[in-house]
């Protein structure tokens, strides 16, 4: 893998994302705005639990959601490039599939991480004070980065089956919505969906982030088991993304 190629693509992708400031601001502010609104409206509502407010229960899911949206972004971007013939042009250069997917992972991690900082800032503004301090925040960011890598893999898979950027945008929600519903926003056990949650990568991130927010020790084996499972799932999805991307190249 050649770092020069990877960072050239990352630079281009960042320029693509900042080219339309309105879209950039909207997509960057969506999750932080949701955090602010829910913080203000549900910050003192203990409707789901006597120990935590609805906002505190949902906050990890909001953070995870920012990462899940990467599936849409990366799938639409790759498919759009294919429509324009840019993917074929890239295939004909010495760029390898591994370099390309690695560049996508880095490029599409930047936005969720910015959203994460903004969302945590909003949560702080509405009075949310997690119990694990700076190290806790660092671990949360690590979880989100791994989940974003996984999402880019899903994005690559989605783009394989899409003929246009708009189709890719629609198909991406096949991977986004179940993760969102069964393993992100709503605590799975709450709606009897507990038996599904294990198959979704977002569950492991959401659950672990919730534990960190709740003040569990950062050496807690459950948190690290969640990280291990999420990392393995991400690696599998990455390999699947690589496989499907290779197939797409030759289509």
């Amino acid at each position, binding site marked *: 893998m*050649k770092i*020069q*190629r990877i960072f*050239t693509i990352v630079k*281009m992708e960042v*320029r*693509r994302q900042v*080219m339309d400031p309105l879209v950039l601001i909207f997509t960057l502010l969506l999750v932080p705005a949701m955090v602010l609104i829910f913080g203000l409206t549900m910050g003192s509502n203990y409707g789901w639990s006597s120990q935590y407010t609805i906002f505190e229960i949902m906050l990890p899911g909001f953070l995870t959601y920012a990462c899940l949206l990467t599936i849409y972004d990366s799938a639409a971007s790759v498919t759009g490039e294919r429509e*324009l*013939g*840019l993917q*074929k*042009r*890239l*295939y*004909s*250069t*010495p*760029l*390898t599939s591994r370099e390309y997917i690695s560049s996508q992972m880095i490029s599409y991690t930047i936005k969720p991480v910015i959203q994460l900082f903004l969302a945590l800032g909003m949560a702080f503004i509405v009075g949310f004070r997690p119990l694990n301090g700076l190290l806790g925040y660092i671990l949360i960011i690590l979880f989100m980065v791994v989940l974003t890598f996984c999402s880019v893999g899903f994005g690559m898979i989605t783009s394989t089956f899409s003929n246009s950027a708009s189709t890719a945008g629609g198909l991406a929600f096949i991977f986004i919505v179940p993760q969102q519903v069964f393993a992100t926003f709503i605590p799975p056990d709450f709606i009897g969906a507990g038996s599904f949650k294990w198959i979704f990568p977002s569950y492991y991130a959401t659950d672990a982030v919730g534990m960190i927010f709740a003040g569990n020790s950062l050496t807690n084996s459950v948190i690290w088991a969640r990280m291990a499972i999420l990392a393995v799932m991400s690696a599998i999805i990455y390999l699947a993304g690589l496989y499907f991307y290779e197939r797409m*190249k*030759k289509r």
Partner: protein
Amino acid sequence: MLHITKDTGLDYNSSKQSPRAYAIEVDHLSKSFKGKLEDVKAVNQISFGIERGEIFGLLGPNGAGKSTLISMLTGILSPTSGNAYIGGHSIIDDLQPVKEMMSVCPQEPALYKFLSGMANIEFFGKMYLMSDEQITRRAEELLRQLGLFDFKDRLVRAYSGGMLRQLSLIVSLISDPDILFLDEPTVGMDPRNRRKVWDFLGNINSPEKTIILTTHYIEEAEALCNRVAIIDFGELLALASPAELIKKYDVDNLEDVFMEITGRSIMEGSY
């Protein structure tokens, strides 16, 4: 053993030269696509060789199989059967060295529209691991030759169609490739720009640089190519220099050669 197709002008059996001496060697290459009722053979058992330093034309109407053949040679499509060797490397088993020595100018000017012309050139130069200095030096030279230097910092979305095609050509030449594939490089250009590109391609041709050009413009093939392969319905119908083909069929130009061989005009298209 390579198949000898009629009029290919090649006879690997009798040649003392090893087939590997060719810059490009195509060996029974085929590509089929799944159709609703039956498979469609876009390229059917084509074999030929291209010598180093040649400008080689693939001539045929739209849908003849030229772009499919180019796509296979550049690793974009996998052949259904057969193989090809570029600089001695198989396109099936050893593609990476092939990609490092060649470049493609696709039929559509595939460029990043939100980047400037220069940024596009830099982007693709870096795919070949060129340094900033190398890219700047080569880009300036190419931009000046094609008259785009003053527009290099303009966003590509503001380029005209002709400028886009010329920029696409510059992008494909930035790495100074040994082997250059040009897929209909002047389609849609006005006659003045087309002539400019022909002059440019004539100038960059050298004994080290092999150019493979697909076109359905007869005058383009006649003006540029040392040899042409006439392709239709995925079959290689003839291969020789334009002058040899014209002489052989005792006609006035390549259009008439095509008419003699296929019974129709090249501009009619295959479908």
